[in-house]
């Protein structure tokens, strides 16, 4: 299939289109695959270097770094598998425009998890700075680390540190699964 596409030129066109789309949207990173701790470290190191070379304000750099870490860890801890053979995969995109950086993640979740996550996101998006501080305090003092090593603080903390609302979508795949897309924004 791929070889055929290359021969007919459609694959080459795809590569060029993809390149142009990335440039247009100032996408600095796209990844699809398994999200491991090594991947997280590699991406954050890369982003740190890029942000530094772009002379981005250091507090913005730290926020972008933090949102990347938390989002990558969310994918690696919470992604579900449709079949048993594959390790959980996700898509991860870092892009920007004149005003903001955007960290976008996409991964598969069971519909059951999607429903409870939707509730959490609705709640987090409804809170102001003080509300987020209270929610953070309540969660860190009351919560235990989950078996996967999460503290249940990631989304609250992203909202608190960025001061922005999440954008999110749950695209239905079938009766059991949805594709979850989360966009976090760090203002420049």
């Amino acid at each position, binding site marked *: 299939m791929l070889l055929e596409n290359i021969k007919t030129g459609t694959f080459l066109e795809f590569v060029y289109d993809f390149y142009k789309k990335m440039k247009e949207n100032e996408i600095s990173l796209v990844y699809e695959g398994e999200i491991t701790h090594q991947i997280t470290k590699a991406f954050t190191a890369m982003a740190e270097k890029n942000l530094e070379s772009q002379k981005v304000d250091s507090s913005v750099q730290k926020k972008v770094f933090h949102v990347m870490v938390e989002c990558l860890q969310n994918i690696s801890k919470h992604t579900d598998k449709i079949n048993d053979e594959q390790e959980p995969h996700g898509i991860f995109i870092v892009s920007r425009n004149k005003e903001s950086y955007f960290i976008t993640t996409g991964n598969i979740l069971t519909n059951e998890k999607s429903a409870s996550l939707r509730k959490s996101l609705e709640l987090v998006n409804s809170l102001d700075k003080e509300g987020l501080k209270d929610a953070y305090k309540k969660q860190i*003092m009351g919560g235990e680390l989950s078996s996967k090593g999460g503290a249940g603080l990631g989304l609250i903390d992203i909202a608190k540190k960025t001061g922005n609302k999440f954008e999110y979508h749950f695209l239905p795949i079938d009766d059991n699964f949805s594709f979850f897309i989360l966009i976090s924004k760090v203002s420049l």
Partner: protein
Amino acid sequence: MDTMNLVGTDDTPNVILDAANSKFELSGRSLPEDVAAFYKPILSWMEAFAETVPDKITFDFKLNYFNTASSKMILDILLKLEEMNEDNDKVTIRWHYPSNDEDMKEAGEEYADMVEVPFEMIEY
């Protein structure tokens, strides 16, 4: 008490727990792959140390980054220190934060609000 001295890496902090020289420090960056496994020996050390009924101690936190899973473990260390702080004058926390890092400053202020231990906020 044995001294614990861990040199930091790109995802784990420097840890100095030295009862003999009364030096206690957590610094650098904390986003370990397995947060619970990394912090467990530190919390066990603190537990054993508390039983020796130490004199005054000052604990320095000089982190430039930690993820939310680590933040829970840092609270556990602070709660241990709170337990040791019986008469409210035994333990002091020095929370160091980079001068341009409002979030790290705020994190210290929030911890100070959660535990009953005196906090000194130190900009560097």
